């Protein structure tokens, strides 16, 4: 039986795990964007404090993912449920590219546009929402795209702590020494990453200005 046949025969399970995977990634990205973007803005406004934010999120990024899942397992509220834990770990992983790119997007706004906006009497908030965020959105979305692709990959490890997702097939295949089972998890995860990359890339291009 080939890999494709295996996937075909187990289509309902593949679909269920794909949806579970999508859910883990979706919630994590939603959280990461809603935490990371404000933090990125804060970095541009308070550079001294910003160094700490960037430093901490860089350190988090360097923790091997399997180890991070393990560390979080021992904490009280998070350790109770596997999906809670997985979402927390994935969110932490996704933060760095989002914070960095939010920061870069804002800093990359043409200084003359910023000066003109100030000179016309825009308040700080107007400058942020009407100038800096719209003009930096392409770069910010590039960060979201990178973070999403990483998260789709890392989320396969969530199966190691019982949070489900396409990693289930991968770990099962590893245990059974059966490449077909591994691929039944790896192929949908790779397709998901490619699709996310493509769609977010298209969105990103809409924010490119001459």
């Amino acid at each position, binding site marked *: 039986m080939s890999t494709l046949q295996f996937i075909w025969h187990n289509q309902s399970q593949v679909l269920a795990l794909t949806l579970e995977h999508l859910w883990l990634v979706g919630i994590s990205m939603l959280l990461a964007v809603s935490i990371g973007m404000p933090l990125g803005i804060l970095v541009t406004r308070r550079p001294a404090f910003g160094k700490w934010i960037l430093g901490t999120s860089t350190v988090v990024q360097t923790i091997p993912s399997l180890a991070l899942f393990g560390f979080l397992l021992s904490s009280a509220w998070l350790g109770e449920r596997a999906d809670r834990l997985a979402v927390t770990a994935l969110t932490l992983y996704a933060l760095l590219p989002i914070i960095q790119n939010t920061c870069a997007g804002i800093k990359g706004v043409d200084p003359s546009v910023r000066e003109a*906006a100030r000179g016309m*009497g825009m308040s700080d908030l107007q400058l942020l929402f009407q100038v800096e965020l719209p003009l930096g959105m392409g770069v910010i979305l590039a960060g979201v795209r990178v973070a999403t692709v990483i998260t789709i990959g890392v989320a396969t490890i969530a199966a190691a702590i019982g949070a489900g997702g396409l990693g289930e097939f991968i770990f099962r295949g590893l245990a059974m020494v059966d490449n077909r089972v591994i691929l039944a998890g790896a192929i949908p995860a790779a397709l998901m990453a490619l699709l996310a990359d493509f769609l977010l890339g298209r969105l990103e291009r809409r924010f490119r200005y001459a």
Partner: protein
Amino acid sequence: MTQENDLAIEFRGVSYRLETGPFLLEDLSLQVRRGETLVLLGRSGSGKTTTLKLINALLKPTQGQVLVEGRATSDADPIRLRRRIGYVIQEVGLFPNLSVERNVGLVPRLEKWSAERTGARVQEMLALVGLDPGRFAARYPGQLSGGQRQRVGVARALAADPPLLLMDEPFGALDPLTRAEIQQEFQQLQQRLQKTVVFVTHDLREALMLASRVALLEGGKLVGVYTPKEFRSAPNPIVDAYRQAFETAPG
């Protein structure tokens, strides 16, 4: 002696420097009369742009006071102050994500004008700077030439009808032909509108063409204030250096 209420802008012993570093402007006292075009002339680093930015409170004086319409800028709300001052810079600084129409209508919208009033004003402003609203309103800055972009910049600065207009080498990046065209148009425009204009340039020809008075700056200090006629004959070594540089300059 000029009457107090004839003054649009007054510098009283103004110095400016960054927290650490030399003074970029030293003990400047200068008066700008209502409706005149005062040109700040000087070489790079002479303090022209610093002087301009002190007027719309993009910079705060280290010493002394800047009065705009009789009120110290240090006491005014900078946002409200800037909404009453048009600001045009060399790089223009149009918002690349907004159409020409939305760029020009920006300050009226910030000031919460109605959509109809803003729309009518945008049409009027575009026509004023010689851009056909039908052709240009929907375009984006990336689709305009340098000269067109700067016209939009002037239209945007005038949109909310500010009594004051600050211009920082607005025509400096344009090719010589376009520059001459737009200088002439601006001169005619200014004769019609009678705004108070403070205009920064290092181009003596431009200064003498547009100015009612020229304030010459050198190394952060005011050399003197001259009418164009006075400037042509003033017995001052720095003034003389300018005249010579432009007499011998080609073109």
